[in-house]
């Protein structure tokens, strides 16, 4: 009755955030990137092997194992108590995407490094192949679960994008793996890698815009502040790199290297943009309060629900 209803003037406690910003450090967006690169490269390596692209298969598993080797270091470094990192493997909880992801990463890391090692020294080809297949099996989940991890939080810009984020991260991972492959093999043998990079970039850009549009007001951080800055970098780098890979990179190794590097930089910027958007989303209480208020008002105007406590 006498309580002012929320209209344009949202009410809050001295403008302070309702949610806590994540405590995650720069290691985490870099891990989103290396996890995507490693995961998709494992898959790429297996498909290349099966379809007879030997060199691409070999280089991709090396890229995957390198990325999979860096990833756990980044994660351990980010912990508040790094010396307790093994506690991650103390339990297995499906309600915790981080728990599931830790197991996926441990398995994938082991498989890709065994395969890359044996492949490089040219010993035990069967074991190497088995390990490659094993790492390819976990590759796609590794590239995608980080999106589920951040969706499974109270941060509006992440949680409300739970349907788009896994596809965004997946396409970004494909673009990264393709770009890395296009750098690592001569142009004549890199056609599938270039196609993956270009296709991945196009799908990723389309999904990013779709996600932003679907989020509406909650998606504002993507056009503001650091998240907005990283998004601009991402669009410029990915599209520029894809242009090079689609054209001159077919003949020129230099163009392939520059184009691939641009795509890799752009896909890293995608992860940074998403990461930073989460902080901005938590910092401003309006992203938390306004959608909840609207939800409440919708349910109050729905028939059969009377709220008379005001």
């Amino acid at each position, binding site marked *: 009755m*006498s309580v002012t209803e*929320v209209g344009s003037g*949202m*009410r809050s*406690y*001295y403008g*302070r*955030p*309702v949610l*806590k910003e*994540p*405590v995650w*450090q*720069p290691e985490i967006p870099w891990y989103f990137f290396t996890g995507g690169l490693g995961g*998709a490269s494992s*898959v*790429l390596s297996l498909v*290349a092997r099966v*379809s007879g692209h030997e060199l691409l298969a070999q280089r991709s598993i090396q890229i995957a194992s390198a990325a999979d080797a860096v990833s756990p270091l980044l994660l*351990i*470094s*980010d*912990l*508040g*108590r790094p*010396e*307790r990192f093994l*506690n*991650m493997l*103390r339990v297995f*909880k499906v*309600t*915790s995407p*981080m*728990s599931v992801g830790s197991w996926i990463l441990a398995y994938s890391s082991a498989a890709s490094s065994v395969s890359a090692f044996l492949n490089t020294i040219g010993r035990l080809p069967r074991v190497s192949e088995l390990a490659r297949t094993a790492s390819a099996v976990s590759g796609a*989940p590794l*590239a*995608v679960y980080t*999106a*589920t991890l951040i*969706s*499974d*939080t*109270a941060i509006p810009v992440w949680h409300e994008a739970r*349907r788009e984020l*896994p*596809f965004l991260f*997946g396409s970004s*991972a*494909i673009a990264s*793996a*393709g770009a890395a492959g296009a750098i690592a093999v001569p142009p004549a043998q890199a*056609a599938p890698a270039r196609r*993956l990079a270009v*296709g991945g970039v196009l799908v990723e850009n389309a999904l990013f815009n779709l996600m932003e549009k679907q989020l509406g007001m909650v998606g504002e951080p993507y056009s503001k502040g650091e998240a907005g800055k990283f998004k601009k970098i991402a669009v410029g780098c990915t599209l520029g790199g894809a242009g090079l890979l689609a054209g001159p990179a*077919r003949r020129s190794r230099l163009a392939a290297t520059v184009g691939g590097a641009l795509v890799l930089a752009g896909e890293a910027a995608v992860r940074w943009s998403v990461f930073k958007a989460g902080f901005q989303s938590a910092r401003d209480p309006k992203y938390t*309060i306004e959608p*909840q*208020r609207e939800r409440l008002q919708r349910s109050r105007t729905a028939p059969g629900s009377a709220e008379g*406590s005001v």
Partner: protein
Amino acid sequence: MAAEPTGTPYAWPDTYGDEAKERMGFFTDTSVCIGCKACEVACKEWNLVPDDGMVWTGESYDNTSTLGANSWRHVAFIEQDKPLHGDGDGEVDALRWLMSSDVCKHCTHAACLDVCPTGSLFRSEYGTVVVQEDVCNGCGYCVPACPFGVLDRRHIARHSGDPPHEILGLQLGKNEDGRVWKCTLCYDRLKGGHEPACAKACPTDSIQFGPLDELRERASKRMEKLQAEDWNGARLYGEDPDDGVGGFGAFFLLLDEPEVYGLPPDPVVTTSHLAEMWKTAAVATGALVLGVVAGFLGGAR
């Protein structure tokens, strides 16, 4: 509003069997809070919660500002040009000063507990949500998972005299606490048959401790009284077992909308969408594999 007692004396029988206790909680009745902050002090003293600096905020009498790793009770102060009762009945200078002692909600469906990858966060035999500090490795997942922003990582050197913490760099064993901390509902005191320190210290019984069913009954009676007396904006917050987190173990009687106190108006546990999120991840995983295969269709151009 009047929550029916569930009739079950054991809150978590499936987990604890014979060792399960009645579900215990807080009812914080802000209509009698006088803003003395005895709860904040008692909590810090009993739980050895460290000092985390002092800032004059200028926000009424509140210099704690928010719950966090080093503040497990937080008294909010709100000054309003509004009468306490009804429309003021011709009061010229209508003014009210709202005070509310905030705390971890010990949700029935607790996001922090669900997402914790180490099992450090657990449900006690009293139905409360507690962090095991000897297990927590400071991954920080619970921090953005909590819909109330209760949990935070503690940034304080483990021992006085430790060198300052380097955030970057791959060194193991950082020289700071690094773990997350929050209200335990004084798990140790409960084990000894005592009420939590904040409730014990509260001079007006604004913080009431007891079996949750009993508290809900008491709260609904109190609400009836306040409504009869025409208190402005009185409402219960978090007492409804059908809300987005399945009801709070620590719920409130507020005198204005939750957001005025810095609380979310309609909190929902993020894991209520978990099945949908895993399904989406599975589809995206399949799409990724198909996408890579598609890249190999076509010639060598």
